[in-house]
C-alpha cells in the first residue's frame, strides 16, 4: 500500500514477481540520484497498463514523476518526455502484453533512433490484470483463459527481437534477484541510448513459473534460467547473437553498444543549421 495514499486500492497478489522488480527499481533510482546529486524529481516513470504498470503508484519513499497513460503507448509517451527534456531520466515500466503485443510497433523506431530511455519490461508470459489470457511470450500449446484448447501461435523471443531491431543495451534478469536487478537497471539508466532490461517476473496467480525458471529438484524440473558466463563479451554482436541461440533464458547483460543517441544527432543539426527567428521567417513571406 502506497504511503502517499491511504485510499489507493490496487494490490499485487502475494508472491507476484513485481514486488521484487519494484524494490530493484527503487534501489536503482536512489543510487542514481545520489550518485549524480540530481533531485529525485528528475526521474520520470512512464508506466504501461497492467499489473506491472501499477508500479508507478506503489514505489515507496521519495516520489519520482509519473505518467500512467494508456495500454501499449509507453514508448511514444517516453519519446515525447525525453525529446522535450533530454536531461530527465526517463524509465518505462510495462508488462509483456503492453510492451510486446499492442505496443510492439513502437520498439523498432526507438531502436533506430537510439532514444536514451530505459525500459523495464516485466515478462510473466500472461495478461495478469485481465485475468490470465495468453501473451506473445506464452508458449505454443499453453492453455490460458483465452486459449482453452492450447495456444496455436508460436512464442515470441523478445531478446532476439531487440537484437535485430538494434537496441543498444539489452539486459535479461529475474525478479527474485532484486539486488542484481537493481544494479542492472542502474547500469541501463547510465547507458546513453535505448536500453531494455527484460525481467522474468512470474505471475503467481495465472502463470507461476518460479519452478520452471529456478528449477525444482523435488518435482524434477530442470530450471530454464541460466547466468550468462563471465567470459561473455556483451560488446560483440556476434557473441550476443550466439548466446541467444542457446536454449533457456540467459540472465545478465546480453549486449551493449555505444552509438549516438537521437538527441546527440538532433544537437548536431541544431549546431549545424541556424534556425531563423520568427520575425525573419515572417519577412520571407512579405510582398
Amino acid at each position, binding site marked *: 500500500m*502506497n504511503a*502517499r*495514499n491511504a*485510499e*489507493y*486500492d*490496487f494490490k499485487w497478489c502475494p508472491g507476484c514477481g513485481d514486488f521484487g522488480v519494484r524494490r530493484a527499481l527503487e534501489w536503482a533510482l536512489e543510487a542514481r540520484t545520489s550518485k549524480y546529486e540530481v*533531485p*529525485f*524529481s*528528475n526521474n*520520470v516513470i*512512464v508506466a504501461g*497498463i497492467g499489473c506491472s504498470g*501499477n508500479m*508507478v*503508484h506503489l514505489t515507496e519513499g521519495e*516520489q*519520482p*514523476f*509519473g*505518467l*500512467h*497513460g*494508456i495500454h501499449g*503507448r509507453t514508448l*511514444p*509517451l*517516453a*519519446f*515525447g*518526455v*525525453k*525529446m*522535450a*527534456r533530454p*536531461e*530527465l531520466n526517463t524509465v518505462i515500466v510495462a508488462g509483456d502484453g503492453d510492451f510486446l503485443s499492442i505496443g510492439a*510497433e*513502437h520498439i*523498432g*523506431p526507438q531502436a533506430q533512433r537510439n532514444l536514451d530511455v530505459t525500459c523495464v519490461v516485466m515478462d510473466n508470459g500472461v495478461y495478469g490484470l485481465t485475468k490470465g489470457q495468453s501473451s506473445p511470450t506464452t508458449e505454443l500449446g499453453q492453455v490460458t483463459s483465452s486459449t482453452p484448447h492450447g495456444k496455436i501461435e508460436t512464442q515470441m523471443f523478445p531478446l532476439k527481437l531487440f537484437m535485430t531491431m538494434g537496441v543498444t543495451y539489452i539486459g535479461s534478469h529475474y525478479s527474485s534477484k532484486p539486488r542484481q536487478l537493481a544494479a542492472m537497471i542502474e547500469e541501463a539508466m547510465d547507458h546513453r541510448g535505448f536500453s531494455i532490461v527484460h525481467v522474468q517476473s512470474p505471475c503467481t496467480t495465472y502463470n507461476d513459473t518460479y519452478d520452471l525458471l529456478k528449477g525444482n529438484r523435488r518435482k524434477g524440473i530442470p530450471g530454464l534460467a541460466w547466468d550468462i558466463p563471465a567470459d561473455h563479451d556483451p560488446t560483440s554482436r556476434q557473441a550476443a547473437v550466439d548466446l541467444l541461440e542457446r536454449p533457456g533464458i540467459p540472465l545478465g547483460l546480453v549486449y551493449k553498444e555505444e552509438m549516438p543517441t537521437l538527441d546527440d544527432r*538532433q544537437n548536431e*543539426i*541544431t549546431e549545424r*543549421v*541556424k*534556425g*531563423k527567428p*520568427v*520575425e525573419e*521567417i*515572417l519577412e520571407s*513571406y*512579405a*510582398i
Partner: protein
Amino acid sequence: MQNRDFVIRFAGEGGQGLVTSADALARSAALAGYYVQTFSTFPSQIMGGPASSQVRISTSPVLSSGDEVDVLVALNQYAFDNHSGDLSENGVAVYDSSEYDLPEGGKYFGIKADELARSTGNARAANMVVIGAVANLINFSLEQIDGFIRERFTRGRPGDAAIIEANIKAVRLGAEVAETTGFSVGELAPPNPPDYKQIMITGNAAISLGALAAGVEFYVGYPISPATTILVWMETNLIGPGKLAYQVSSEIESINAVVGAGYAGKKAMTATAGPGLSLMSEGLGLAWMAEIPLVVVNVQRGGPATGLPTKSEQSDLFASMHPAHGDVRLPVIAPGSVEECFYAAALAINWAERYQGPVILMSEFQQAERGENIRAPDLGNLNVEERRVYTGANGFKRYESWTEGELTPMPLPGGPGAYVANGSEHDEIGDTTHLPRHHIRLTERRFRKLELLDDSPYELEDDEMDVVVMPWGSSKGVAREAYEALRSEGLELGWVYSMALNPLPAAVLESLRRKRLVIVPELNFQGQWSALLRMEGVRAESITQYTGTPFRPSDLASRIAARVSQELGEKVSV
C-alpha cells in the same frame, strides 16, 4: 466598364506546372497592389490526372474562389471539355494548339507556348508565354509581370540576366498572340493597394507560422494530405536549442509523443487529417483525462476512411469535438480564412496552456493550400501565454477540485510537486482510484475548465434579424460573399460567426438561442454544426454540400435566399 475581379484558371494534368503559372500570376497581381486568392484541385496521385489551378484577382480582399472563370487556359482536350462550361459570359479560353485543336469560331484561341518559349532561347519560359496572353486578355500591364519576373529570377547567379530577359520576351510573345485574336474579357480596374504591410501565404504556412509565433517548441507528425506541408514547414523552420520537429512512425506515436512533451513542459503540436485524427482518439482521451496541454491540427479532407484525400469537406466536426469514448468534449477552433489560420494557431497554443488540455484546430484542404495576400501579423502585439508552473514545495495536489479563477499551476518533471499524470481516474496526486467522489469532482473539473476559454473572436451583424446565417471554418469566406450579395439585395438576414466552435462565446450562444432560424452552410452530409447547435438549444438548420468541392458563392446565395423567404413567408402567413 471596368471589372472588380477576374478568375483565371489553368487546367490540364498534374505535373504540368499549373500551380506555378497560377502562383506567378497571383504574385504579379499582388505586387501590383491587387488582392488575390489561388486555389488548386488535383487527384491523390503524383503525376498526371486531371488537375487545375486558378487565381482570382480583385480590387478588394478575395473571399472565395468565385463562380465563373474569365480566362481558361486548357492544356489538353479533357481539360477544355471539363472546364469550358465554367466560362463566364464573355470569358475566353486559351488552349495549347501543339497538343490538340478546336473547331473554328468559338471564344477561344490556340497558342504554341513551347515553340514560342524556345524562340526566346529559354524553353522553360512556356508558362510565361501563356501568362502574357492572359495578361493581354484582362488588360493587365505587362510591366507588372516584369516586376515579378525580376524578383523571381534574381538569384545572384551568372545566368540571371539572360533568364529574366527571355521570360520578359516570352510574356510579350504571348501577349502578341492574344492581341492578334482581338479577344478581351474586359479590363481590371486599377488596384486599391492596402495601407498595411502584406504577406503572401498559404493556410498551412499561416498555421505553422502562428504556432511558431506562439512559442511551439515540439512538433511531431506523420505525413498525410493535406497536412503534410505543416510537417515539412516545421522540419524546415522549427530549429534551435530545445526545439524539435520530427517525423514519427504513425499518428498513434504522434499523439502520444505530444502528450509526453506537453507533460514535460513544452508547447507541443501535431497536425494530421481525418484518418490520423481517428487513430488519435485514444491518445486525445488520455490528454483530456490527464490534463496535458497540446494542440492537434486537423486539416480536413473528404471522408470517411481514406475518403477523398485531396478534396474539400468539413465532415470531421463530430470526430473533432467528441473524438474518444467517455465524457470528453474538446475545445475546437476553426479559422475561416488564411489570415485567421495564423491567429487560430496562436490561440490554440494559448488555450492548451491556459486550460491544461488538448485543443483541436480544424482547417480544411482548400484553405490549407490556397495562397492569399493578407495583412502581415504584428508579432509584437501577439498575445502569447506561458504555462503556469508550480514552484512550491512537494506534496502539491495537482488534481484538486477547481471551480473558478486561474487554473492551479502544473508541476514539471525535474521540479517540485511530483505527481502521476494518470489516464485512469485518480485522486489529487494522480494515483488511481475508484472512489465515486474523485470521479465526480474531476469530471466536473475537466469540463469546468472550458469556461476559461472565453476569448475567441466572433462576429455578430444585423443582430436584430430573426434569421441569421452562421458558417464555420473554411466556408466562412464564400458564405460572406453570398451574405453581402443578399444584403445588398435587401434580404432580411443577420450574420453570426465564431472562430471557436467549442466553447462558443457566451454572447454568440445567447444571440443564437434567440433566433428563429440559424442557417448553417457546411460541406458535409449530416449537417454536423447545425446538429451540434441544436444540442445547445438553437433552432439551426444546415445547407449542405458533399461534392468534395467548395460552395460557389452564387449557388449558396440562392439557396440561402430560398430558405429565408420560405421561413419569412411562413411568418407572414401566420
